[in-house]
């Protein structure tokens, strides 16, 4: 789960990272009031979870409260990569003498939390990785010891942190690490970390992404979820315990198992169609979850056919078939449905499905072809 900049900063501030927090605003008037409280020049920043907001015009300087109001007016409602800006952050402007990149990632390859640091701050680290990989320090931390002082020193020397700011840098580094670990993050970055003209070290922008698996033990962080930026269908799916991602195609997919769900999408594409979604209904394929899945799929008006692919395994295929038929009978919209069930009693499943006017298929390739055909 991605957190908005202002939420990320909240967490970092709680762990002692020095920054200029600012205030959020959802109207130009609020932005003006915030700028008045802050005093002096401010930056008005679109709070969106997609990258490239700066280039899209979502970050503007404002010298006065009136200007802040005007800039907030420009930015609020703006569309950035498909997201409508609903909130801006109004934060004190800083005079920047030097910019750094400082991040922590969950490093799958190293099986460690890895520090990534670069003296080329303010640009995306992927960019620096391409243009100047030597400017990047990657430092995997010991998985049981965590961040040590010598590592903090090494990062500071690598970045060329001025001697009088080394102690502050250690505070930033410790705070970033604590924020990462205590939030169960898989990414926490400060970009840029700046030295200001008056010699302060400040986190000017921040981004934290959380490990979804750990959210159950962080209800406070779960509460920071920004529902405005999520597809309503994805919100509904999450509430129903279904793993669902909306896509742009016309063939709805309902599958048990994530790998098989992706494969089903791939085969739809291979058969000349476009999947409308990723959907993993999880183990057991229980009737209520099947019903919820159908509703979520059919809420997408683009969906012209549904492909159901259940590898029952130990679950009985005839029970799954009954569940599908039952769930379908309650739907508000009818589209052609291709159903493939494999596993124990899958032969018994076929007549049940056929009686309910569902298209059946033996192989997955066949099911995909029939679904594409049905959607035409």
């Amino acid at each position, binding site marked *: 789960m991605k957190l908005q900049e202002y939420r990320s900063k909240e967490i970092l501030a709680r762990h002692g990272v020095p920054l200029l927090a600012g205030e959020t605003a959802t109207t130009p008037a609020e932005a003006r009031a915030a700028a008045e409280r802050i005093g002096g020049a401010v930056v008005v920043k679109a709070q969106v979870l997609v990258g490239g907001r700066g280039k899209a015009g979502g970050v503007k300087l404002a010298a006065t409260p009136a200007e802040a109001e005007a800039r907030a007016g420009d930015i609020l409602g703006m569309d950035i990569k498909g997201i409508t800006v609903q909130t801006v952050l109004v934060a004190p402007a800083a005079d920047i003498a030097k910019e750094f990149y400082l991040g922590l990632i969950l490093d799958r390859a190293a*099986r460690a939390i890895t520090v990534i640091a670069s003296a080329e701050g303010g640009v995306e680290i992927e960019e620096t990785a391409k243009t100047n990989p030597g400017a990047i320090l990657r430092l995997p931390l010991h998985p049981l010891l965590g961040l040590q002082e010598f590592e903090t020193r090494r990062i500071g020397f690598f970045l060329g942190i001025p001697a009088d700011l080394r102690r502050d840098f250690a505070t930033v580094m410790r705070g970033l690490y604590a924020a990462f670990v205590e939030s169960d993050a898989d990414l926490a970055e400060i970009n840029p970390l700046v030295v200001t003209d008056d010699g302060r070290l400040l986190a000017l922008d921040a981004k934290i992404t959380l490990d979804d698996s750990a959210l159950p033990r962080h209800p406070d962080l779960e509460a920071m979820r920004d529902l405005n930026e999520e597809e309503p269908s994805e919100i509904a799916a999450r509430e129903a315990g279904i793993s669902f991602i909306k896509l742009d195609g016309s063939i709805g997919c309902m599958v048990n*198992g994530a790998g098989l769900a992706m494969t089903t999408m791939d085969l739809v594409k291979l058969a000349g169609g476009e999947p409308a979604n990723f959907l993993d209904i999880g183990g057991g394929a229980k009737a209520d979850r099947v019903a919820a899945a159908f509703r979520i799929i059919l809420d997408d008006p683009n969906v012209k056919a549904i492909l159901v692919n259940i590898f029952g395994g130990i679950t009985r295929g005839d029970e799954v078939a009954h569940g599908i038929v039952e769930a379908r009978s309650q739907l508000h919209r009818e589209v052609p449905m291709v159903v493939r069930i494999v596993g124990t009693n899958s032969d018994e499943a076929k007549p049940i499905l056929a009686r309910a006017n569902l298209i059946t298929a033996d192989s997955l390739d066949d099911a995909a072809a029939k679904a594409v055909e049905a959607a035409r």
Partner: protein
Amino acid sequence: MSIFVNADTRLLVQGITGREGEFHSAAMLEYGTNIVAGVTPGKGGQTALDGRVPVYDTVADAVGQTGANASCIFVPAAFAPDAMLEASAARVPLVICITEGVPVLDMLRVHHVLKANGTRLIGPNCPGLTSVGEAKVGISPGDIHRRGPVGLVSRSGTLTYEVVQAMTDAGLGQTTCVGIGGDPIVGTSFIDVLAAFNADPETEAIVMIGEIGGEEEEKAAAFCAREVRKPMAAFIAGRTAPPGRRMGHAGAIISSGGGGTAESKRSALEAAGIHVADSPSHIPRLLHDAGVG
């Protein structure tokens, strides 16, 4: 032969009295797996599965009393890290964790400790493994398998069954089928399993089922080019997956920077001389073409 588990495996089930644990333990027993003990704290002294399996309070007790040499974990995600550490501390050499949703920072610690202890961990978030006709550990349906010359390794559950079913239907049996799990940090990697298959004389060919996210398939491809001379076939799921989204499995995510795509993995495998199927159903044909079966 088979890898990791066989007819001599003395299996312990952690969480044997839970709903999932009990259901799948029954299926494992039915398959013929030698379940020697169960562990549920507070139920020590009782039995599970109609008196067939003694239950202990701790893994240390279970190992001490029964000589269990493998443990299958069915406890909820919040308790799974502790369960893995418990099994490893009791010197169980093989731990298979089925549980999905283990926080990844917990797994970092667990992975490190188990590796240092010399414990092999399979999973978490995996279907387990089946050495056909000898032992089934986990949640795979047993009846899709047929004994034969092919070793299979996969990050998925049902997708694995799909491929196994296709192979069995085509008359291509398996030695061992291993599901390594769909999480970002898993105990046993593709390379670990490929190396074991490579060393197993009965395994004549290898099937590898990958998916988007991470770079383990790419590393495995390099390993195969270097070490493996047995015929191979592969499949990679997720060619249509959008970047930056977690596709069900915690580990199945193409990074915003563009790493971990299906294409990257397919090219790496093909560069290593491994044929990559467009559909799971093509795998038997690829194996036949390579002279297997």
